[in-house]
């Protein structure tokens, strides 16, 4: 495989789906940390 060759379309779709999930998990994790700070950190 050429180093710069794009992965298969199926792979790209899976990657995008996983990427979306990653971003959701990060947003939820950061929101929980923010909630912890706002609720108990004062």
């Amino acid at each position: 495989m050429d180093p710069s060759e794009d992965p298969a379309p199926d792979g790209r779709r899976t990657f995008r789906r996983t990427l979306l999930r990653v971003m959701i998990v990060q947003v939820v994790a950061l929101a929980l940390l923010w909630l912890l700070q706002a609720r108990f950190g004062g």
Partner: protein
Amino acid sequence: MGTLNWIIVLGYLTYVVVDGVRRAKGTKEIEGYFLANRSLPWWAVGLSVMATQLSAVTMIGTTGQGATDGIRFVQFYFGLPIAMVILGVTLVPFLHGAKVFTAYEYLERRFDAKTRSLTAFLFLILRSLSCGTIIAAPAVVFSAIFHWSLPVSVAIIGIPTVIYTMIGGVQAVTWADVKQMVIIVGALVAVVVVLFVKMPVHPGAALHIAGATGRLKAFDFHFTLKEDYTFWSGIIGGTFLMLSYFGTDQSQVQRYLTARSVDEARSSLLMSAYWKIPLQALVLLVGVLVFVFYQFKAPPLLYNPAQEAQVEAARGPQYHALQQRYAQAFAAREAAARTLADAEGPRAKSEAKAVFRDREADVDTIRSDALAMVTQVTGDASKDVNYIMPRFVIDQLPVGLSGIFIAAVMAAAMSSIAAELNSLSTTSVIDLYRRWIRPEASDKHFLTVGKIATAFWGLLACFVATYAARLGSLIEVVNLFGSFFYGSILGVFLLAMIKRARPVGAFFGLIAGMAAVAGVAYFEPEVTFLWYNVIGALVVVGVGMALSLLPPRTSASPQPSAR
């Protein structure tokens, strides 16, 4: 520590070694030994990436940091998911698709042999030293807690790891990492459950007590180059650090080169992106809950039993007087904590918090006096924070669970050491031995040399660990030394993805990047290390592109064939 606990620890060590040796079956050539024939599933690679990054320092140092400083350290990892996504669409397809053994091998294909050799050499120096410090950190703690001599502590952690890594290669490393992640996460979750069960106040009150001392402050939006843990240093500096670490450090690159395909390699990195921040927050929260637990159960004045014995021997009466003051201050703080836990209504809570903070400050002052006494007696700054978690585990956890936690600390140490030994061996064989000494030798020969190299680096790391522990500041020196060129190496890989970049730009850009970081460290010592990676990478790309765009003076002579 109890027979059952030791049976668990010994059983775990034996299992890891036996399983590692079993994995050696079928490893007959270097592609299998170093890259598992690029056949591993994404979830195993992902767990291996996470286990490699989670060392014993995380289990004992980071939990201790959570107990004393709270969860703000989590900001350090805010850049990790961003870095993983960037790597997933940039470097991973390049490196995995190029079918290389090492990240540095790719640099020769793109640039020249001297850029490859310089980056490989820097990796070998840094990783061999850091591998020693990774063994040293838990070995020193075990030595003090269990009264083992330091060489014995180093051997207990180092020797089994060297054996399974040497015999089993990357297959053993990865599958051991998978089991190690399970035991690490299981132990952390079990400790959280035990803490909540044993806590004399309800969880909400426990969090109010932690929050009153600022330990639940996860975000600091203050922009400064002089503080390690702020939102901005985590997002910007952290992204560059993680790009450097996961994109150019062979100990990480080798994990995802073992994946079956580019997509599985990317997915393995995204798995780490999924869990890193929640996992790190969990580790820090364990420390915070230990802090709250010790509001109601008197903790030792000094957590390090070895240093406590030294201080008692040298300054007995003074230390005992301090202990009496500590007992009174603890009783006053416990009463304040209970008042805070029971307080209802904003005004009562606010008043209770103010009193609790004052009592906490009294306890802190006495602990500072005790730590100053340690420094006077031993001549070393005390690293008492690293002993908070081990003392809690041994004194407070139920029989069996403390054994599992100690096994988890060993697992964390072993997974990091194994990945580093494996990558040190790969780089020495592929980038140095096969490239410069015996390019035409057989696979069988390289396999034997790979095993010898693993044993060599393992024994060197154990040797360094024994001395690193005595030279406390060496760990900081190694970390600082690493940050000098981590970002610069990232800059070279960024150049590799720019079509117009040429070898002369890559090599001299790398040197300019390292010089720029050294200059900043010397003339602006207050700039925190996270920014070194940003500076190094940007200078390499800037200088590298400037040199690449200059017209070439003569045509380059052909390189010897690279393997």
